[in-house]
């Protein structure tokens, strides 16, 4: 308690922000008019993606990234959002394996739960868009590292796969995922062997089913706008069990990287390498699925590539992927028109932003174009707010935003063992009910089609995946967790992610100014009148004593804590619309 007072009162650091990472250095390129102009036109109205005010800039940064510091807001206000996207797309991958290796010895790294690495990337890195996308992909290609926690390298190697493909191509990502020993283990196809009539053994069907159902096409045929295609009023299933039996033969023959198929001959660092295909264990039978037939006696790696090509070519892939990625960034219930716009960009691999600049390679499955289409969509940037628009933010995003905003840079950068307090926050009643890579199953914490029962949105038929983890106990857990995280009442958080509330502390004798300050930083000025009134009443009900310095500081801090806790539990903090 004492140390907190000292930090808050004495800190001269204030908010230096994250340096230049968010700066809009590419802004001028984004404003270049189309080249075909011949008569001098009247000055074009600014594109919808022009970030005209600080509030607009902050809103956008919170939508596309995790948070908005003063420096980032200042750097983007007045520029087009497309310029920020372009700058962010240039941020190179930052290898989790390298970070892990630089920070810990081999033995330490192996025996740790390294979830803290993911938190640190989200909280400290300037590459907000890449990290946000990596986190989004981790909720689509789901593994949990509960099984892998015996070797900390597994988590880092897995995150590297998502991270290096975050702005790449979906087909490449499917390949890297399929060859990953982490996925091989999680969906049980590492050491999956061809059938054997004598013993009755058949190939394991697990990955064959889930790669179709969850990672690429889903269970029913879709229109390009993500709605279900109907024939005679009924959905059409994309595959049946014979497809699974055929495809299961493809995913046979993989073993950990090593000198032989045998587990004892695996390399020490096998979790950091792709699995190796051993053709003698790979099914030589014909493999038929989704209307594709891989002839008998086709080798393992060739079969894998042919199968992934066939899956990737399915017309469901663009709307299937587009809708889920939209849900991770901008809209819990995206309109069909929005899904179709993004799916079309996924299909064409190219996106032209409202300011005329273009993104992508032109190849189907280009994720940078897809991502740009999601966050630079005109309907997201218009001034109309429909009641069903916006994204329900999951607890991980809410915590990351708060921490990016208020933790000191030095404490964000210092990855100590204490960060393990953040390893698993998935207990709903003691923590957040969610943590990166801790989903109970391959179905993630919530499903893209979830419609909450007994709610207004459910009554209207709107999907809201994140509402699947909102309930009595998670509300309770969130409030208590955030109270402790903000106020540091016990030692659990001591020494890590040290908050700096200096500005608010100094404004505590002017409650309205203090609340405005918090509103700006956490809600980009979206605080509702009713929330503001409630916070003001509560804060003013706590008199500032001036009999001793200690009492005065304590009361100022109490006011800060109250206002912050009430802000992060407000509906407007939960929904970014």
């Amino acid at each position, binding site marked *: 308690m004492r140390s907190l007072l000292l930090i808050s009162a004495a800190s001269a650091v204030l908010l230096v922000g994250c340096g230049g990472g968010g700066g809009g250095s590419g802004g001028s390129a984004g404003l270049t008019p189309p080249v075909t102009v011949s008569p001098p036109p009247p000055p074009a109205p600014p594109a919808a993606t022009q970030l005209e005010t600080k509030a607009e800039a902050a809103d956008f940064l919170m939508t596309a990234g995790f948070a908005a510091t003063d420096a980032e807001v200042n750097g983007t206000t007045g520029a087009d959002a497309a310029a920020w996207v372009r700058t962010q797309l240039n941020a190179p991958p930052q290898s989790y394996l390298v970070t892990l290796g630089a920070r810990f010895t081999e033995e330490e790294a192996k025996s740790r739960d390294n979830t803290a690495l993911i938190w640190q990337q989200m909280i400290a890195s300037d590459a907000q868009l890449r990290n946000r996308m990596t986190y989004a992909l981790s909720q689509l290609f789901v593994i949990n590292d509960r099984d892998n926690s015996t070797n900390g390298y597994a988590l880092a190697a897995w995150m590297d796969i998502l991270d290096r493909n975050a702005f790449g191509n979906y087909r490449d990502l499917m390949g890297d995922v399929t060859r990953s020993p982490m996925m091989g283990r999680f*969906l049980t196809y590492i*050491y*999956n*062997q061809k059938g054997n009539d004598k013993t*009755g*053994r*058949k*190939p*394991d*069907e697990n990955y064959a089913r889930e790669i179709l159902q969850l990672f690429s096409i889903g*269970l029913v045929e879709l229109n390009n706008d993500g709605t279900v295609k109907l024939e005679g009023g009924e959905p059409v299933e994309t595959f049946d*069990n014979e497809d699974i*039996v055929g495809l299961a033969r493809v995913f046979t023959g993989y073993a950990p990287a090593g000198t032989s198929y045998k587990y004892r001959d695996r390399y020490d660092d096998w979790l950091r390498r792709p699995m190796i295909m051993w053709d003698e264990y790979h099914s030589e039978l014909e493999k038929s699925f989704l209307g594709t037939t891989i002839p008998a006696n086709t080798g393992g790696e060739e079969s894998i590539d042919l199968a992934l090509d066939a899956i990737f070519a399915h017309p469901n892939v663009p709307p299937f992927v587009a809708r889920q990625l939209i849900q991770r960034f901008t809209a*819990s219930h995206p309109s069909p028109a929005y899904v179709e716009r993004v799916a079309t960009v996924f299909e064409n691999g190219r996106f032209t932003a409202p300011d005329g600049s273009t993104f992508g390679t032109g190849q189907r499955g280009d994720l940078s174009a897809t991502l740009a289409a999601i966050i630079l969509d005109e309907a997201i940037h218009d001034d109309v*707010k429909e009641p*069903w628009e916006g994204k329900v933010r999951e607890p991980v995003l809410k915590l990351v935003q708060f921490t990016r905003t208020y933790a000191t840079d030095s404490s964000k950068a210092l990855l100590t063992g204490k960060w393990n307090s953040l390893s698993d926050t998935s207990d709903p009643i003691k923590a957040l009910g969610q943590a990166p890579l801790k989903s109970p*199953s391959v*179905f993630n914490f919530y499903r893209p*089609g979830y*419609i*909450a*029962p*007994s*709610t*207004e*949105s459910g009554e*209207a038929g709107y999907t*809201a995946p994140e*509402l699947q*983890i*909102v*309930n*009595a*106990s*998670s509300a*309770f857990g969130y*409030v*208590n967790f955030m*109270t402790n995280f903000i106020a540091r009442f016990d030692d659990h958080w001591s020494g890590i992610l040290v908050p700096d509330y200096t500005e608010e502390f100094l404004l505590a004798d002017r409650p309205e100014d203090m609340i405005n300050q918090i509103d700006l930083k956490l809600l980009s000025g979206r605080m*509702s*009148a*009713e*929330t503001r009134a*409630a916070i003001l*009443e*509560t804060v003013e*009900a*706590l008199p500032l*004593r001036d009999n001793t310095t200690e009492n005065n500081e304590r*009361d100022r801090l*109490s006011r800060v*804590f*109250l206002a912050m*806790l*009430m802000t992060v*539990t407000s*509906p407007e903090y*939960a*929904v970014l*619309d």
Partner: protein
Amino acid sequence: MSFYNRRRFLQASAAGFMGATGALAGLGQHRAYANTGTGYKALVGIMLKGGTDMFDVVLPRDQESFSALTALRTGLLNGHDGSRDPDNQAALNPINADQFGTRRFGLAPEISGVADLFGSGEAAIVGSVGPLLENTNREDMEAGRSALPANLFSHNDQRSTWMALGPEGRRRGWGGAMMDTVLSQSPQAYPQFTTITAGSGDVFLASEDTRIFKAPRDPDGLSVDMVSRQWLTSGGHGEEARALLDTYLRGARLGSQNIFARDIARSQANGLQSMRDYGDVFASVGPVSTEFPDTRIGRQMAAIANSIHIRGAIGNTRQIFYADQGGFDTHDGQAEGIVGPLSQVFDAILAFRAAMVETGAWDDVVVFTMSDFGRTLTENGDGTDHGWGSHQFVFGGSVVGNRIYGDLPILDPDASHFTSSRARLIPSTAVEQYAATIGSWFGLDAGAIDQVLPNLGRFDARDLGFLGGAAV
């Protein structure tokens, strides 16, 4: 009682939307009781997530059947290292053994306690049950002559079909729907604390009129202002602010134009308020003294036992509970993998039984299992893949036990009760029949049962008899 009044007030104000349009509207109608009765009754559904391989749990005990299983599951039974051998099984001696000719059955030894409950008549097995749209077999299915449930063999969809009679996306489970009919027929019933999950918020309890409450595993000190009280109230200073914060957290601010924001505001306010109400009641009664295993499912069953223990103070005469346990998706390493989750679930059920005996409610409670699906009879080396029909267990003082209901089919992959690919069991009893039997015991009349289970009429028996109903 003030407790009641406070909850009514909450439902009408903070709970808002559904309170006004749903349950409370029904409360004023003063319809007759139907036959819901006034004595206490509770259902406890346990979802075994991942699809439990009951072929590895309810085992053939006669040599001929066991040899058939061995021929199909060489790798798996090697992995079990003899634990599934007839001599090592926990024998079952059902009253209706004659029905199965020379075939004999036993349970996996790690759940021998279940065999004891079976023998004492407090447990029964319902064999070959699963989602169906109509009765079918291999020939009809392969010729395309049968209507089949959507998205067979898919985890989330079949789990949803077990709990809500349709694939993922359903917003009403048959547990929740049963409670809706109870509420609509009982003017005194109160929709809070009627559907309670101790595990995840799955669709089984979801409904129009109730709000699913999450029973905390440790109801002591359920306070969201514990910390702030400690901070703000030294010497009375800040007491007013603390009270305002408390009011703020438990009040729903519904001014947002955004529909999701309003839903979250309601959910948070309702959750915090009901958590506090529950904590208050719990503090006045205290927990059962029975000790539960310190496992995830053990803690869930303890939370349910404690909720039932305070039933007098809560005041609802009908409650439906839900718990769940994962770890059954045994595609590989099944021999090592299934033993833990299996014994954890059934050990927790045994402790639960002791707690119910302690609190005098064992005759008033029915515990039943569900699972995504059964698994392939043929193995994939050391595991099994997604199947369809399976066997389930029911427990309770009112169970007509020591019997096998439904069917335990002959383990012949070429028989028409298995699919030709991988021998996935085609169920012979529908989820609806299983649910209807439970619902009848719970007090639903035929009309209510048909409302909750609209497809029931497609199958012969409306009541399987395992809860003493006439087996018709």
